[in-house]
C-alpha cells in the first residue's frame, strides 16, 4: 500500500486525463467526455479523502515528494508534491464542489453544441486547480496557476461567438496576467536569493529556512518585496482591488463556470497561495498591504453589489467582497480563519451560483433581477437551498456556516495590533452584505413574475437539484467544524492542539463581538426588507427605491465606480500610444534611414554600370569569340558512330597487347 503522498499526483492527473479525453472526443462522444470528467472527479475525491485521513493523522507534518525538473550545469529546478492538512482540506473541498458542479453541468449544458469541449475545459481547470493545491514548489504552483488562468479564459469565452464573452475572456486573461507577472518576478527573485522554490524539503524549503534568515534591512526589504509581488499574483487571481475588474465581466461564461471558477475554487487560489506562503509574508511587512487591500476590496465589492441588477453580477461582487474578507484575515495574521472562510464560502457561494444557474435555466436565460420575481412558489427546492446560501453569506447567526467563519475573521481583525481600520471596514461590509442579499432575494423570489418566461418557470430535474441540496447541507454543517468552542479545523490547520488554549480574555471578548455582528446582520436584513420586501417591484422598468433617493451615487455604483472607464483612459491609452509609437519609429525613422542609404547605393550603381559597359565588356567579347572558334575545329573528331568507337577500342586493345608483348619480349 503506497502512502498517499506517493499517489498524490493522481489527484490532478486524473482530471487531466479526462481533459485529454474530452479534447479528443467529438460531439457524438459527448457522454464519454462528461462521463470521464465525472468519474475522474469522483476518483479524485476519493483519493482526496484518503489523503485527508493521512494528513489529519499527522497534523503539522509536511509530507513531500520532490523531483528534479530542469537541471543544467549548476542550475537546478525542482518540482514537488506536498501533503499537509491545508492541502488536504482544500483538496476535499475542491473535488467535492467540483464534482457537484460537474454533475450540475451535465444538466445545464445538455443542449450545447460544444458539450464535450466544455467538460474538457472543466477537467483541465480542475486538474490545474488541484495541481496548485498539491504543489510543493512555487514554480509548479505558478505553472498550474497559469493553466488555471488558461482554463478560465477558455471557459469564460466558451460562448466565443458572443463578442462580449470573447472580450471578457481576454480581459480576464490579461488582467490576471498583469498580476501573474508580479508573481513570476517574485518567484524568480525568491529563487535567485534562496536558491530553492520548494515550500518544504526536509528543512531546506524556503518556508522552513525563512526563520533562519537574519533580519537585516536588505533581507527584510527583499522578502517584503517578494511577498508583495506574490500577493500581486493573488490580487489578479482573487479579484482584489485594483485588479478586480475582470471578475464581474467573467460572468459571461456559463453559470456552472461562474460557480466553479469564480466562486468556489479559482478565486480561492490566491487566498490559498497567501496561506501557503504565510511564513514568508509574516517575515516581512507584506501583511499590512494584504490586510488593507483585503479590507478595501471587501468594502468595494459589497458597495458595488448593492446597485447591480444582474443576478450573477451581484453574486460576483459579493465574491469579490468575501475574498476581500479572506485577504483581510490573512493580512491580520489569522490565515486559518481565512481558510475556514474559504471553505465555507466555497460551499455556500457555489450553492448560490448553482441556485442562480437553476433560476436562469428555468427562466430561459433571463438574468436580470428586475425581470425575475415570484419564483419561490414555482421552484421550491431552489428557493429553499438558495435561502440557506443567502443566510450563510449574510452571516445569519449560529446555524449557518458563514456566520462562524466570518466571526473568526472579525475576531482576528479585532485583535490585530497594527490598526483597527480594517476591522471597522469589515463591520460595514457585514451590513452591506446582508442588505444586498436581501434585495436579491426579495427581487427574485418574491413579488410577482415580471416576464413571460418566468411565469412558466418550474423546478429543474435531479441532476441540478441534487447538487443544490448537498451543497445546502454542507453550507449548514461545515460551520460547526470551526466554532470558537470547538476549533477543530483551525487546530488541524495550525498543527497544534487549541482546545486547551482558549484564553480567558478571548472568551470574555468573544460574545461581545459576536453580539455586535449579529446586530449588524439583523440591521442589514431589516433595512433590506424594509426597502425591498414590503414594497415589491411591480414592473421591469421600475426604478430602484434607492435610485430615486440618491441618483448620482446609484449611477456611480451601477457603473462599478467607473473603474473600467478609468483603466481605459489611463492604462489602455498608454499602452496603445506606446504601440503606435513603436510602429511609427519602425516605419519612419529606422526604415527611413535604411531607404536613404539604399537610394545612395542605387546612384552609385548607375555610375558604375556605365563604366563597365563602355570599357570592360568589349575586351571580354573578343576573347570569347576566339575560344569558340577553336572548339569548332576540334569537335570534328566525334563521328557519332558507336560501332566505330567500339572498333577502335577493340583494335586498340589488340595493338596494345601486341606492343606490350613485343616490348617485354614474351
Amino acid at each position, binding site marked *: 500500500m503506497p502512502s498517499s503522498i506517493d499517489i498524490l499526483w493522481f489527484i490532478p492527473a486524473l482530471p487531466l486525463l479526462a481533459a485529454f479525453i474530452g*479534447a479528443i472526443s467529438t460531439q457524438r462522444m459527448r457522454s464519454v467526455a462528461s462521463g470521464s470528467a465525472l468519474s475522474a472527479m469522483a476518483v479524485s475525491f476519493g483519493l482526496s479523502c484518503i489523503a485527508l485521513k493521512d494528513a489529519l493523522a499527522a497534523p503539522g507534518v509536511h509530507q513531500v515528494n520532490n523531483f528534479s525538473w530542469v537541471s*543544467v550545469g549548476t*542550475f537546478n529546478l525542482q518540482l514537488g508534491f506536498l501533503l499537509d492538512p491545508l492541502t488536504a482540506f482544500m483538496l476535499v473541498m475542491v473535488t467535492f464542489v467540483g464534482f457537484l458542479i460537474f454533475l450540475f453541468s451535465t444538466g445545464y449544458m445538455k443542449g450545447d453544441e460544444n458539450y464535450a469541449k466544455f467538460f474538457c475545459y472543466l477537467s483541465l481547470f480542475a486538474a490545474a486547480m488541484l495541481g496548485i493545491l498539491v504543489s510543493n514548489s512555487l514554480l509548479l504552483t505558478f505553472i498550474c496557476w497559469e493553466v488555471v488562468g488558461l482554463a478560465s479564459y477558455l471557459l469564460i469565452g466558451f460562448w*466565443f461567438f458572443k*463578442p462580449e464573452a470573447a472580450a471578457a475572456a*481576454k480581459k480576464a486573461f490579461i488582467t490576471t496576467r498583469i498580476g501573474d507577472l508580479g508573481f513570476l518576478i517574485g518567484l524568480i527573485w525568491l*529563487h535567485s536569493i534562496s536558491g530553492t522554490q520548494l515550500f518544504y524539503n526536509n528543512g531546506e524549503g524556503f518556508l522552513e529556512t525563512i526563520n533562519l534568515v537574519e533580519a537585516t534591512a536588505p533581507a527584510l526589504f527583499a522578502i517584503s518585496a517578494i511577498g508583495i509581488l506574490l500577493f500581486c499574483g493573488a490580487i489578479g487571481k482573487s479579484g482584489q482591488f485594483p485588479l478586480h475588474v475582470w471578475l464581474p465581466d467573467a460572468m459571461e461564461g456559463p453559470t456552472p463556470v461562474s460557480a466553479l471558477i469564480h466562486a468556489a475554487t479559482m478565486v480561492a487560489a490566491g487566498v490559498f497561495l497567501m496561506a501557503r506562503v504565510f511564513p514568508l509574508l509574516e517575515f516581512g511587512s507584506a501583511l499590512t498591504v494584504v490586510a488593507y487591500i483585503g479590507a478595501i476590496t471587501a468594502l468595494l465589492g459589497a458597495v458595488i453589489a448593492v446597485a447591480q441588477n444582474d443576478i450573477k453580477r451581484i453574486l460576483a461582487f459579493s465574491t469579490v467582497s468575501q475574498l476581500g474578507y479572506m485577504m483581510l484575515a490573512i493580512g491580520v495574521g489569522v490565515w486559518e480563519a481565512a481558510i475556514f472562510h474559504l471553505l465555507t464560502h466555497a460551499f455556500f457561494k457555489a450553492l448560490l451560483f448553482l441556485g442562480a444557474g437553476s433560476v436562469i435555466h428555468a427562466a430561459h436565460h433571463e438574468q436580470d433581477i428586475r425581470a425575475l420575481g415570484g419564483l419561490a412558489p414555482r421552484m421550491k427546492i431552489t428557493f429553499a437551498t438558495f435561502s440557506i446560501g443567502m443566510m450563510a453569506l449574510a452571516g445569519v447567526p449560529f446555524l449557518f456556516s458563514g456566520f462562524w467563519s466570518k466571526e473568526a475573521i472579525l475576531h482576528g481583525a479585532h485583535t490585530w495590533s497594527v490598526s483597527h481600520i480594517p476591522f471597522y471596514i469589515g463591520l460595514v461590509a457585514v451590513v452591506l452584505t446582508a442588505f444586498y442579499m436581501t434585495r436579491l432575494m426579495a427581487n427574485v423570489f418574491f413579488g410577482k413574475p415580471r416576464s413571460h418566461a418566468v411565469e412558466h418557470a418550474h423546478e429543474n430535474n435531479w441532476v441540478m437539484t441534487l447538487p443544490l441540496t448537498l451543497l445546502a447541507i454542507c453550507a449548514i454543517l461545515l460551520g460547526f467544524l470551526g466554532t470558537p468552542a470547538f476549533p477543530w479545523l483551525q487546530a488541524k490547520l495550525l498543527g497544534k492542539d487549541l482546545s486547551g488554549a482558549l484564553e480567558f480574555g478571548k472568551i470574555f471578548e468573544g460574545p461581545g463581538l459576536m453580539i455586535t455582528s449579529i446586530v449588524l446582520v439583523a440591521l442589514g436584513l431589516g433595512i433590506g426588507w424594509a426597502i425591498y420586501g414590503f414594497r415589491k417591484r411591480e414592473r421591469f422598468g421600475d426604478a430602484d427605491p434607492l435610485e430615486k433617493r440618491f441618483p448620482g451615487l446609484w449611477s456611480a455604483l451601477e457603473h462599478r465606480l467607473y473603474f473600467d472607464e478609468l483603466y481605459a483612459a489611463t492604462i489602455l491609452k498608454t499602452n496603445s500610444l506606446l*504601440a503606435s509609437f*513603436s510602429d511609427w519609429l519602425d516605419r519612419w525613422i529606422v*526604415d527611413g534611414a535604411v531607404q536613404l542609404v539604399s537610394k545612395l547605393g542605387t546612384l552609385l550603381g548607375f555610375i558604375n554600370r556605365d563604366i563597365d559597359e563602355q570599357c570592360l565588356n568589349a575586351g571580354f567579347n573578343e576573347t570569347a569569340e576566339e575560344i569558340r572558334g577553336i572548339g569548332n575545329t576540334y569537335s570534328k573528331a566525334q563521328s557519332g558512330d558507336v560501332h566505330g568507337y567500339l572498333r577502335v577500342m577493340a583494335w586498340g586493345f589488340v595493338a596494345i597487347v601486341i606492343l606490350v608483348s613485343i616490348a617485354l619480349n614474351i
Partner: protein
Amino acid sequence: MMTFSTILAQAVTGTSSQDIPFSPPLLSLIVFAPIIGGLILLIFPKLDTVLARILGLFFSLSTLVMGTGAAIIVLELFGTAPIIKTAKFMSPYKLVENGEIVSSLGINYHLGIDGISILLVLLTGIIAPMCLLASWKIKKANLFNALMLLTQGAALGVFLTLNFFHWFIFWELSLFPVFFLIKIWGGPNATRAAYQFVIYTLGGSAFMLLSFAAIYAATGQLGFNILPSYVGIEGSLNEKLAAFGSTVPMLVFWGILVGLAVKVPLFPLHTWLPITYAEAPVGVSMFLTAILSKMGVYAVHRILWPIFPEQLKTASPYLIWLALAGIVLGAYAAMRQTDLKRMIAYSSINHLNYCLLAVFAAFGATHATQAAADAAFSGTLLQMFNHGLSAAALFFCIGVLEDRSGVRGLNDFGGVRKVAPVFAALCGISMFSSLGLPGLNGFVSEFLIFRGVFELMPWAAVIACLGLLGTAIFLLNFWQKVFHGPIKNNTSKITDLSPREILVLGPVVILMFVIGIWPQFIINLFKAKLDLGH
C-alpha cells in the same frame, strides 16, 4: 549488453571497428543530403511534380533522421566518455570530420557537432519538412522544393562547420535561394522585400568578412575550435589585433556583431524582417523565422562568445538596451499591425531578442553567479528551439488562413473557431506556446532566461516583462479577432485542416507539450556542454 545507441555510436565513430567497420561521414551527409536533393531537383526541372515533392520531402526529412542519429550518438558519447575537467581547451565537438584543404592557409574542411549545433540541426530537421508540406500545393513546386532544400543545406552547413571559410560560404549561400524564393513566390511587394533582405544581410556580412580578414591576418587561423584558444593567454588575439592599431580589436568585434545582428535581428537593424516575412510565401516565412534567424543567435554562441569574451563584456551593458528595445518595441509594434504576418514577424523580433538579452546580461553583469549564467544560457538555447517551433506553427496557421480566404488582415476574420475547430485548437496551442503559457515549451525557456537575467541584471528583467505582457495582449487580440466573435464573410470560406496540414502541425504541437512538460529531454542535448563549464 550493448544498447542500440552504443552500437550506433560505435558504428559511426568507428571506435570499435571490429564489429562494424563501415563508418559513414554522418555530418557531411547531414549537410550535403539536402543540397544534393536540391541539385537533383534543379537538374531535372521537368520531373513529375508529385515525384519532385516526394523527393524534396525525402531529402528534407533526411536531416531529421540523421540528426536524430547524431543526437543519440552525441548523448551516448557525452554520457559515457570521461569528462576531463582539467583540460581547459578540450574540444567539445563530436563526430568531427577534419580534412585539410589548404592547410597552409588554415582552411580546413572541418565539421563538428556539439550541444548547440545538434539542437539546431534537429530543429532544422523538424521545421524544413514542415515548410515543404506547408507549401505543398505551391506553383512551380520543383523549383520551390529545390531552392528550399538548398537553403536547408546551407543552414545546416552553418550549424555544423567549424572553419570560418566554409562557414561563411554556407552563410552567404543561404541568402540566394531565399532571394529567389521570395521574389518568385512572394506577395505584391516581394521584389522590394527580396532585395532588402539580401542587401541588408550582405551588407552585414561584408563587415563580418572584413573582421575575419583582420583576424586571419593577425593569427593565420580561421578555425572556430582554434581561435578560442587565443583568448586570455600570452599573445592573445586582442594583443595581436591591437598590433594593427589600438581600436582594431573593438572594430573587429563590432564588425562581426553587425553581421550577426542583422540576421537575428537586433534593434535597429531589424527593418528588413517584417516586410520580408510578410511578403515571403508561407513555407519560406516559416523557414526564415525558424531557422535562418537562429543562424545569427547560433553565431553569437559560436563566434562572439568564445572568441571575443572581453569585448562582449565591455559592450554588453550598451547592447542590452538594444535587446530590450527589440523586446519591448517588437511586442508593441506587433500590437499595431493589421497584417497578421507582420504581427508574427514582430513577435519574432521580440522572442529572438530574449535570446540576445540573456547572452548580453550574462556578459554584462558585474557579478554573475554560475547558476544564473547557466540558466541564462540554457534559456537562450531552449528559446531558439522553442521559438522555431511556435513561430513556424503560427506562420503556418496564417498561411492556412490566407490559403483559404486570400486575405490575412487582422480584421478580416471572425469566428473561425466555429468553422474550423481543429485548426483553432492547434493554432491556439501554438499561440499559447508563443505567449509563454506554462505547460508549453515557450514558458520553460522564458523562465530560464528571466531567471538568469533577473539575477544578473534585475532591472533588465523587469523591463523585459513589459514585452511578455505586450505579447500576451497582441496574441490574445489576434485570437479574439480572428477566432472568436460572429462569423464574417471571409471566415465562411475557411475549412478545417486537411490531413496533410494536421500532419504538419500535429507533431509540432505534440513537441510543444513534450518540451513544456519534460524540458530536460531537450536540455540533455546541450547539458553536457554546460556541465563541462564554459
